[in-house]
């Protein structure tokens, strides 16, 4: 039982749009981060689906790299959010507006 590739694409696009929506609407930095991860995983869905579709492994390989980089990104992001909280006592991305420091 195999599923046509365009369904995977539709799925991934749905996931991507959900993530994008979260990015645009959420004000909590952590939720923002999760939404971005969602978008990255949408890309992974695409890559793996297309890897089967085209019958070469490039996509799967790249998906691995994407995961690794996403993890590293999360690590850095959480660090930044932590210092953000220490400085502003909040993780709301709209709070810090003290750019004229």
């Amino acid at each position, binding site marked *: 039982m195999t599923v046509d*590739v365009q369904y995977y*694409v539709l799925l*991934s696009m749905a996931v*991507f749009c959900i*993530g994008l929506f979260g*990015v645009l609407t959420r004000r909590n*930095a952590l939720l*923002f*981060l999760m939404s*971005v991860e969602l*978008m*990255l995983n*949408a*890309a*992974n869905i*695409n*890559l793996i*689906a*297309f890897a089967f*579709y*085209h019958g*070469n492994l*490039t*996509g799967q*390989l*790249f998906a691995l*790299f*994407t995961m690794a*980089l996403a993890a*590293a*990104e999360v690590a*850095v*992001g959480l*660090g*930044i*959010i932590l*210092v*953000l909280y*220490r*400085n*502003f006592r909040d993780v709301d*991305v709209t709070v*810090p*507006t*003290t*750019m*004229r*420091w």
Partner: protein
Amino acid sequence: MAVVDLPQWLALAPALILAVTALVLFAFDSINPGSTNRTVLSGTTVIGALASLAVAVWYAAAGVGATGIENYGVIDIMGGQFVVDQLALFFMIVVAIVTALVAVASHDYLRDHAYQAEYYSLIVLAATGMSMMAASNSLVTAFIALELTSLPSYALVAILKDNRGSVEAGLKYFLIGALSSAIFVYGVSLVYGATGSLQLESIAANLGAAGELGGLLGLGILMLIGGVAFKTASVPFHFWAPEAYEGAPAPVSAFLSSASKAAGFVLAFRVFTTAFPLEATTAVIGVDWTWAFVILAIVTMTLGNFAAATQENVKRMLAYSSIGHAGYVLIGLAALSTPSGDLVMGAAMIHLFVYGFMNTGAFLFVGLAEHWGVGRTFEDYNGLATQAPVACAAMAVFMFSLAGIPPFGGFGSKYLLFIHTIEAAAENTALLAAAAALVINSTLSLYYYSRLVKALWIEEPLRERDALAKPTGLYAAIVAAAVVTAVILAAFGPITDVATEAAATVVG
């Protein structure tokens, strides 16, 4: 020279040297943690950067990647995942130069900072990523290099942990960066879906096979443009730039606005010339993607310059002006549809090269001002020339050069860009608008650049300042950048040759 005797993978040496330097710094910090021996750390960084610069220049001189008979031609590594040609070497050189300048300046700027080794190793890691980006010839390596550049940059921007501005800047930079990299990856996945490959040449080869997936390809290209726009701080992903550059420590701002921008552009140049040759792509997706760049270029430069003209804060002004310059360079991509596209791209590359000096120097001067603690608005800078004439003379050089006034380097590069754009406009009249926008914006930029010079040299200080320190490192970096900016026009001959050659190799 003995380049051919070296193993192939050593063609990446400029990037590898940087990576090794980063590891050495890590090892040093592991051996005695929390060391604040600034001289050793920044010294190591500078040595590494200069070594990478030397190797890159040597390769370029030896003709690695140059097309022709008497040299070694383009070097493919890992089955075309990386390619070392003149374009790569050119930008490796730019990155190495900026890294060295920034490292020298940081020696004083981060005098009493807790995380010395971390700072320098992050700088070098980011530089490694940029060098890799210059050589990456596949969307996989491109994305990895992109992230290798971005992740340390996020940390660098926010490295002043207890400084609210720095942290806020870091947050905004990170959020936009994460978003844009997600969009970039999604674009990559779509391109892969359409062509079934991620290596640039084979993407170009398989464009025809896209068939009914052409729509996906178009969307993917659009998303790739988005990802690149973030790195180069151009519309529509520009709005992080002012915040990040203003909040970040000045050397980091210099690093990002010069080297990171250049890296983003080399990525754009390579991807859009190699992977998406115009005719084939247009045949598949039905639109000529240079139009996107024509519009982006004009919008970016106009927006950047007008925003910069309204700033009161010097660092912020420089940030917006760097957006404007990104717009100038985008013309290099916009003109690719014309026969003289390679010339325009070469001019854009030269502008990035010169920009690497003048913009870095300008930000480093701001760093010097922060080091002095004189404040950040134009008024705060009033009359600095009476106390520090040399540094202020250097800053005047940077400002006039950025504004494109002779006899400084910025004039030369803008001149080339303008001439070639006019030349190309004969084919594609839309470029006439771009050229006009270039001239008008340069004139406008003169207003706020000269405003700073006026503040430095002509105005009287608002309040009494006590004597200003003369930090060796910062001064050395600034003066070096200024000297190069002032005399580089004389050496334009070889630089233009290299740049045009490099552009020609990718444009083909």
